[in-house]
């Protein structure tokens, strides 16, 4: 419990503190240290949960499913803060933003981390909603931080679309609460997930089905499922790069986490009805469409960050699809994919940030010869691209392999669609990546100070996960699989 308090209170306190610190350099370091502290707390929390089993107290619930996401969130938050410090100093030095905005940035960074952690750990669907909405609100100002017309437009779209989406999710939450009023012994606990989960068979199936639709559309908007994804590429491309890294690496995960938790409830409620896998089928449909459409979108990108945000949509689609299939294998694959995708994608966004600094633009056509200009950035981007495209020995291959295998077992014909999507996505990604990293160094392009340690750490972890999934992690994920799919793999 102490560990949880440390984990959660650090960003809360940090947000207030950073709102006051006006020294830009100090704020960067403070941000880094706070994130590190939070990481420490979450690791302690994870160790505790691993040794003592799920923790359900004071309105918080931590089990195998969310504890690894908590660690992942704090880890990516920490490494991104390492990257963010010199990066934002550079941005500040270029006079793109003022010191006041830097204060806003750092403070909101912590608020964002807080809302994510809250959304993951809280045992209350209402609280979950509040936290996810809070995450939107915290980041929306960061998206428009640069105040360019594009940034304002992106932020507006982000705000309005996610706002509408999240409102729909709230309606779904209300419906669940409504259903719970007639099913639970203590109706006032009608939003507590653990209680709902134990009584989910008695929830009214139709209400739950309607509720799930609202929740899926609502949280699905945040996951970036096609055709609700429109905000995502805009927000990712126009915001500061550290924000893109955490949005893609973390926020999408958290939204998907919410969908999966709610799917567990819906599946329980619909178990006896005539369409028990409705939730799964909807998710599969959304996932597949997102996956295929995003892979096609990759072909037409002109902005490097937009391109990788479509790649995020693609991968989120794959995960949604996998969770939709259900069953231990697909679920395990999806959980692993969540992990490796976050690590890889945030590493890529960090690299992309450096690349954009080197070229002075985010336009793909004008980023050239990165390997010659700054080998570490060029290779980082290339290897990140290889990893995200699903080549072994990186972990994404492992998770995609599992998902594919599960698909072949349950829906053999859909695996063809998946394979086509993977091929199209790969072509789309690499046709843009190639000219950026390779080739001669353009005139006047100079290296920038870049800290590639976070990238190395992330890609190293992904590589490790691809070669040998450590036993403790497998058990961890397996427990989560048991929770979600009903049976484990091991």
């Amino acid at each position, binding site marked *: 419990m102490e560990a949880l308090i440390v984990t959660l209170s650090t960003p809360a306190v940090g947000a207030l503190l950073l709102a006051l610190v006006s020294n830009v350099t100090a704020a960067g370091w403070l941000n880094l240290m706070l994130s590190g502290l939070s990481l420490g707390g979450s690791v302690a929390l994870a160790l505790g949960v691993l040794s003592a089993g799920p923790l359900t107290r004071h309105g918080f619930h931590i089990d195998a499913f969310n504890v690894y996401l908590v660690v992942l969130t704090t880890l990516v938050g920490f490494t991104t803060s390492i990257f963010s410090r010199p990066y934002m100093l550079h941005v500040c030095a270029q006079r793109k933003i003022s010191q006041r905005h830097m204060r806003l940035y750092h403070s909101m960074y912590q608020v964002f981390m807080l809302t994510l952690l809250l959304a993951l750990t809280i045992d209350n669907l209402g609280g979950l909603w509040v936290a996810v909405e809070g995450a939107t609100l915290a980041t929306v100002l960061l998206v428009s931080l640069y105040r360019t017309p594009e940034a304002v437009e992106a932020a507006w779209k982000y705000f309005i679309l996610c706002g509408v989406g999240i409102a729909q999710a709230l309606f779904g939450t209300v419906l669940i609460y409504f259903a719970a009023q007639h099913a639970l012994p203590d109706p006032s606990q009608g939003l507590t997930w653990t209680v709902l989960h134990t009584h989910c068979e008695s929830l009214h199936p139709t209400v739950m089905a309607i509720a799930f639709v609202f929740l899926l559309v609502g949280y699905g908007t945040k996951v970036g499922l096609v055709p609700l994804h429109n905000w995502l590429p805009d927000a990712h491309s126009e915001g500061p790069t550290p924000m893109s890294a955490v949005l893609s690496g973390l926020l999408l995960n958290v939204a998907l986490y919410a969908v999966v938790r709610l799917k567990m409830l819906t599946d329980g409620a619909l178990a006896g009805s005539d369409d028990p896998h409705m939730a799964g089928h909807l998710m599969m449909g959304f996932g597949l469409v997102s996956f295929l459409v995003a892979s096609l979108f990759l072909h037409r990108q002109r902005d490097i960050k937009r391109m990788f945000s479509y790649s995020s949509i693609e991968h989120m689609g794959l995960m949604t699809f996998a969770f939709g299939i259900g069953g231990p294998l697909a679920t395990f694959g999806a959980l692993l994919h969540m992990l490796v995708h976050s690590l890889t994608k945030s590493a890529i966004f960090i690299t992309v940030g450096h690349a954009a600094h080197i070229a002075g633009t985010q336009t793909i056509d004008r980023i050239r010869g990165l390997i010659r200009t700054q080998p570490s950035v060029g290779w980082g981007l290339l290897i990140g691209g290889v990893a995200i495209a699903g*080549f072994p020995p990186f972990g994404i291959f492992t998770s995609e392999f599992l998902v594919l295998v599960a698909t072949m077992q349950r829906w053999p014909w859909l695996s063809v669609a998946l394979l086509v999507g993977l091929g199209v996505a790969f072509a789309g990604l690499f046709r843009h990546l*190639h000219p950026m990293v390779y080739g001669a160094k353009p005139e006047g392009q100079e290296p920038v100070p870049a800290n590639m340690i976070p990238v190395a750490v992330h890609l190293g972890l992904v590589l490790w996960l691809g070669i040998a999934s450590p036993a403790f992690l497998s058990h961890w994920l397996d427990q989560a699989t048991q929770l979600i799919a009903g049976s484990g793999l091991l």
Partner: protein
Amino acid sequence: MSSVLPLSGIAVAASLLSGGIALFSARLGRTAAVLSFSLLGVAAIAALVAGSAVLVTGATLSYELPLGLPWLPWRVRIDALSGFFLVLIGAVLMAVVAYGPGYVRQFEHGHNSFAVLGGFSGLFVTGMLLVIVADDAFFFMVAWELMSVSSYFLVAFQHENPANRRAAFLYLLMAHVGGLCILLSYGILAGFGGGFAFDLLRTAQVDANWATAAFVLALLGFGMKAGLVPLHVWLPEAHPVAASHISALMSGVMLKIAVYGFVRFTFDLVAEVQWSWGVAVLAVGSFSALLGVLYALMEHDLKRLLAYHSVENIGIIFIGLGLALIFLGTGHRLLGIIALVAALYHTINHALFKSLLFLGAGAILHTCHERDIQQMGGLLRRMPWTGLFFLVGCISISALPPFNGFVSEWLTFQAALQGFVLDSGVLRSLLPVAAAMLALTGALAVACFVKVFGVVFLGQARSRQVRHAREVSFGMRAGQAWLAILCLLLGVFPTVMVTLMDAIPRQLLGAGLSQATAHGWLWLTPVSAATASYAAPLVLLAVAVAWWLAAMLLRRGGIRQCDPWDCGFSPPDPRMQYTATAFAQPIRRVFGLLFHIDERVETEAGIARHRLRVDDRSWGLFYEPIVRLVQGCARQVARLQSGNARAYLGWSLGTLLVLLWIVS
């Protein structure tokens, strides 16, 4: 015997370490290159020894690695087939190790550091070794893609060159798609077998239609890597642009790994083969062989030309495999074994002579900085050793006795000629047609290598840098010599090799090829002594004796140097020589239908220029439509992102309504 696994482990570790050491080349300088190549040498020797030990004893060894997923650990197994390919890798790698240090000297200065080249070379070799020893589909795929990705980086190595970038992209794309096909085919088998370990796949009771589906996917996947027409387009792009010792590894070994995968899949993992598969493989193989050699004839870039010849030879290998499948599918196991051995024999032969030729091309490139054969000429006098070894390679690849290429084609012909045992008249007539295609291919290959050797090494130099070419360093020559000697040995002592390979059919198909060597080491009698026999050592002896006799008898009389006569015209200058284009022109006209020919005369400022482009037809037929389709879809899909926030909200509303309608 117990040392085989540790030895293979040493091979893998040494190659991995070689890559690792190369990364420090910035600090260690030339030492890194030498160390890195020595470690590759260790890997080569270990692979050679381990592989031959397995082949000699016919044993099977397996081991489980503490890597991979907890319930899907990486399993290693070395059997005769793996052993054979270990030997293949080891043999070619030896040559590359000798050749490499001299060749990479040119990369010491300039942008392209040895770190990248050496690092990924090590990984590449590691990947290939791991594919050979993998014993479950997951590990196989990991190793397979490791091989693809690391070779992709090697193709992209000199990336200032747009051709390299394009080739690398195309290569990785096709490797990716191919890998996915392979994965899917394993998936089908695993669906019936209940798991991904090869043992489970072997025992899977696969429904015939699904087995065919899996087979087609495997053919696509492995065929894409092997370079079967029309999946070959990456090959002539990627192989030429890589550094030459890497081209040798890619063309000589990596394509063979694809053959390994295909053989492992069809002859080992699939329980019941169907003869109809064999027909498909035979057809694809025949077309690959013929089109490969025809495209090669039209090519003037030496390395591209060699790459197209890889397509041809892979086609010949697949003709053998197709014959094997037909015979096995119709219950003629012995003949199937002959065809399989023929295919595998050609596999190792091609590995040897194609690597040899690529190393030769690399030597020329190294000293002349030229890949266009139209600029070469007369190199034999400037680079006598390279020329000699290249000639050996040319003779071998043209399947002329007494070198190795002939033996495997001879075996393939022998298998094809046994077609009369088949019941179906259609099949019976198909086999001779395939044999005719093979014959046509062989004759065209002779034409092509006459062109290559004639234009490159004979005649007079056509450009300045070629005129100043010098023989390459000892190490580079030694690498070529090793392969040339192996080419000759495999050509002269086929019985030794067939005896060694006997363990493979014994393990895969439960019977050996003992009658092939029943009459002693001198005689190769694949079916029976009465049907066909070939005594390669005697042939070599006879050639030698005939030559010696002729030379002895004709010793008298001197030799006088003079100008060329050329029907009494003035002494010809280099520009008067027959060019490669001219040489290939009759064939271009005869087979014009198969090429995409763009020939025109352009008049510019009063000077008329004749322009000629001969391209592969498969681009226009197969690839451009796919590209257009994807682009078109992407354009349609992009309308989703119209930029209008109200439209986006409309999507949200619409989605909600549709979903509500669905669930209600």
